[in-house]
């Protein structure tokens, strides 16, 4: 069964949560923008929703955002690549936890998600399609995109996921 949420509702949910958690956890203000995808050195952190809701959320952003976020969370300037990976994963875990809570309020479906992943560059799994892309500028003009991917098929072969109803847009 597909979960019906309006595209607008989903966008608001993602946008408010990302901005609030990024400010509280990472000390960075993100503003929605129409900027093109970050073009420099990019990192991506992602999480797969695998129970209740089938979807994958990715945050692709300039490396400098992830470094600043890690410095803020660790309260120190010198951070290693491993620190950046570990703290970016923890930050995104909190983002997705809050999104899951808002999804629950809207759908009454208690979703669960797996351990966060992290990679250099953009993340484009073959078995998912892009459904929603939100672009942001950081307070030091960095670029970031929050991307909602939905699976082409679930493991059971049934098309099930967090989908939107165009009539509700």
């Amino acid at each position, binding site marked *: 069964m597909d979960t019906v949420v309006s595209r607008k509702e989903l966008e608001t949910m993602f946008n408010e949560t990302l901005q609030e*958690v990024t400010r*509280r956890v990472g000390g960075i203000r993100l503003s929605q923008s129409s900027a093109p995808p970050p073009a420099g050195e990019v990192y991506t952190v992602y999480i797969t929703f695998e129970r209740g809701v089938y979807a994958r959320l990715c945050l692709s952003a300039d490396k400098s955002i992830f470094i600043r976020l890690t410095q803020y969370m660790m309260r120190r300037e010198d951070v290693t690549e491993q620190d950046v990976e*570990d703290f970016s994963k923890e930050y995104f875990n*909190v983002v997705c*936890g809050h999104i*899951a809570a808002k999804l629950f309020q809207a759908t009454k479906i*208690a979703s669960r998600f797996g*351990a966060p992943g992290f990679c250099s560059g953009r993340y484009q799994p073959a078995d998912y399609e892009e459904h929603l892309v939100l672009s942001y500028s950081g307070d030091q003009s960095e670029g970031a995109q929050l991307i909602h991917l939905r699976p082409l098929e679930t493991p059971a072969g049934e098309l099930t996921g967090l989908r939107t109803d165009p009539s509700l847009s």
Partner: protein
Amino acid sequence: MGKRIMIVDDSRAQAFQVKGLLEDTDYEVAACCQTGEEALAEYSVIQPDLITMDIIMPGMDGLETAQAILEGHPEAKIVMISSLDYEDTRKEASDIGAKAFLNKPFTRDDLISTLDRVMNE
């Protein structure tokens, strides 16, 4: 002597942050365990005054680990920590016997006041 805390969290970052928040307080980190299985094995050895327990972990999750620890040690004081704030999860944690539930992100004041309250129960 400070109250001895055992942190159970697969996230090195979260354990680092909790440790940082507990600096210069009445609490000292006696052990950090990255899995529920490790926590279960270490509990009797460490004998902490209190445990902070992440819920989502690979292998045994935090709720299963808390339940297993409390079955053998009903006196254990466990504070569940999660970014997933569902009412049914809070209820499950409470039913198992966890003393409190902290939703991420939390401040130093949130953490200390929760630990103080649980220790003084």
